[in-house]
């Protein structure tokens, strides 16, 4: 078993009818990492996750899940929260969690005991014997999430885990993900909310139009865009466009331009020599959101072309 990668796949492709939903995706999730799969709606994230887990078979490509070529062989070591949440409404919260554990090989007795502990930790101890239909949507979602970790999986796969949760439960979920990572589990999750990815991910892949457009760390994703300089002169009259980079844009009293390849020093030298002075100067790193929008935008342009 290759311990370096919890999940690896090359050239995954899936077609539904005439539409090629996933088109040759490569992915490699390091063991013990929190890995995000980012993409706009309809990018192929869910289909990719389903193929990785063996819920559906790829038309093309190879995959390895926890060292197994057949994902089914590793299913007892995996926890999964699907995008479309689903629980049996007539089941009690404790039983629902134990049932999901039993599906993954955990005996019922241990499952029920652990379910009680997990519900207490999540602040839902009072609802352990409530039927799912009596719980709020957020609580039910949390119960399902607890069901996906009750058997202490080595790999936790979460498809859009934050959707539908209020800020308090989103925070609980982030804590749970980090707790699972600290326990030694690998976490693979999909999202289109950049803030969560920025806070949680060690590495991420951006998928758009069924293809992987980026793979790397959050910093590397941000690095695909140049930093932006915002400059406000002390004496605006002394600033002429030829002192600034060609793509500088005036925004009120400020000038904005991408950080030149040679750095900010030559530009500053010219401005100081001309007597423009510096009232305010900032170099802004692009956010993951901006990097995502650019990468996805390029993919959309490519698709149109």
């Amino acid at each position, binding site marked *: 078993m290759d311990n370096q990668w919890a999940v690896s796949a090359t050239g995954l492709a899936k077609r*539904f*009818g*005439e539409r090629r*939903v996933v088109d040759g995706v490569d992915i490699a999730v390091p063991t013990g990492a929190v890995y995000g799969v980012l993409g706009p709606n*309809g990018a192929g994230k*869910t*289909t990719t996750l*389903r193929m990785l*887990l*063996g*819920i*559906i078979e790829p038309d093309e490509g190879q995959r390895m899940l926890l060292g197994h070529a*057949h994902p*089914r*062989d590793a*299913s*007892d070591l*995996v926890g*999964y929260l*699907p995008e*479309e*949440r*689903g*629980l*049996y*409404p*007539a*089941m009690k919260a404790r039983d629902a969690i134990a*049932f*999901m554990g*039993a*599906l*993954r*090989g955990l005996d019922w007795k241990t499952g029920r005991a652990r379910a009680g502990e997990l519900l207490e930790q999540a602040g839902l101890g009072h609802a352990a014997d409530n039927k799912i239909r009596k719980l709020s949507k957020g609580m039910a979602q949390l119960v*399902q999430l607890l*069901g996906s970790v009750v058997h202490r999986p080595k790999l936790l796969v979460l498809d859009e885990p934050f959707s539908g949760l209020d800020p308090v439960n989103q925070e609980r979920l982030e804590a749970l993900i980090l707790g699972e990572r600290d326990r030694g589990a690998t976490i693979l999750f999909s999202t289109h909310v950049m803030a969560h990815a920025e806070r949680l991910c060690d590495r991420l892949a951006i998928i758009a139009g069924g293809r992987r457009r980026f793979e790397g760390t959050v910093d590397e994703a941000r690095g695909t865009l140049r930093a932006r300089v915002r400059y406000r002169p002390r004496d605006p009259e002394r600033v002429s466009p030829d002192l600034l980079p060609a793509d500088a844009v005036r925004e009120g009293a400020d000038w904005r331009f991408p950080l030149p390849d040679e750095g900010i020093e030559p530009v500053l030298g010219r401005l100081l020599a001309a007597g423009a002075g510096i009232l305010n100067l900032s170099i802004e790193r692009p956010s993951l959101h901006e990097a995502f929008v650019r990468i996805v935008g390029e993919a959309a342009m490519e698709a149109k072309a």
Partner: protein
Amino acid sequence: MSARRLIRQTMTIARRDFIATVFTPIFLLFLFAPLIMVAFSTIGALGARQAADHGSERVRIVAIVPDAVAPAIAEADRRARKVFRRDEEPPALMTMTPSRDVAGQARATFEAGGYDATAVLYGPLDRPTVLYGPRGARTADYLAVLAGSALAAERLGGTLPSISPTKIAFTRQRPTLGGQNQTAFLAVFGVFFLTLFLAGQVVGTMAEERSNKVIEVLAAAVPLEAVFLGKLLGMFGVAVLFIGFWGTVLGQVTSLLPPSFAGMVGELSPAVGLPMFALLFIAYFTMAYLLLGSVFLTIGAQASTMREIQMLSLPITIVQVGMFTLTLSALSEPDSWLARAAEIFPLSSPFAMAGLAAADDALWPHALALAWQGLWVAIFVTMGARLFRRGVLQSGSSQPFWKRKRG
């Protein structure tokens, strides 16, 4: 994947389905459905019986004979009536003294108020004339027999000799052909009735997972084959509970019945012997349940709404009745190509083989048939799981196979 793991996963699904079905108030309704059915049938039958009895009390057969002959006719009626069961007895006999126009008197009897004559006899006993109304042909024959007995008594000096027979019940060691046929029919009917009542229950079981969206959780954790088989076994457990409950109830009720009923049961004599027949009956019911259940489950899994599931019930029942009819036809012609076809065709095979167990003592065909049927259960479950995966578990599409475009 190990077989042990597959069994564990299957049993997890089966356990969930069994508990979810049995521990609900609705299950009590299901469990007592036969009682409700019997109660309604009994009320209906009692009503019909009462109406029929009310009319039959006034029905008469009439003998227009001289007063001297009337006692002999009445005595003949008393003796002959003994051989009939109560519900098969001819209408009560009424005697009349002949008038001058006896033929006119006989016709007038049909129009008389206060009673309904079904047949009227008049004329000399060796050449009597019997008039009869609608549904009176058999009573006309009965009246003719009474005339014959009365005539015989007259010729023997007024009464027929009385006979005192010694009646000894005899139990035959060899199964009778009639008993075997009866057993075969009951076996086929038993398997058919139980599967008709119980296997149809699995049609809608996948709908719960689809409507609750639990299916993806299941599909990610266990193979769909285990989901399908687990559901079949879960509902089979419900069926076994149902049969166990009613079997116990009927067993207790039967023990209270009179010995004559037990004698009737004793006539049921399967060719393979009763213990082996009981085992084979259970095995074929299991196979019939799994086979038909897997087909119904596959079809039901493709339906996404309750309306679609309800619409599927009729074709499903037609298929079941079709298999039953095929098997009955085969029973009436053993060793024919029809019988072989019914034994080989997977959906009718459990019915036909249950019938064969009653009529033929060879055991090897049953081993072969059970293996054959088991193979088809596996094929149906695998096919069902694949169709389901293709039809339902693809992102953005939940089209059943009959709505899917070929591409």
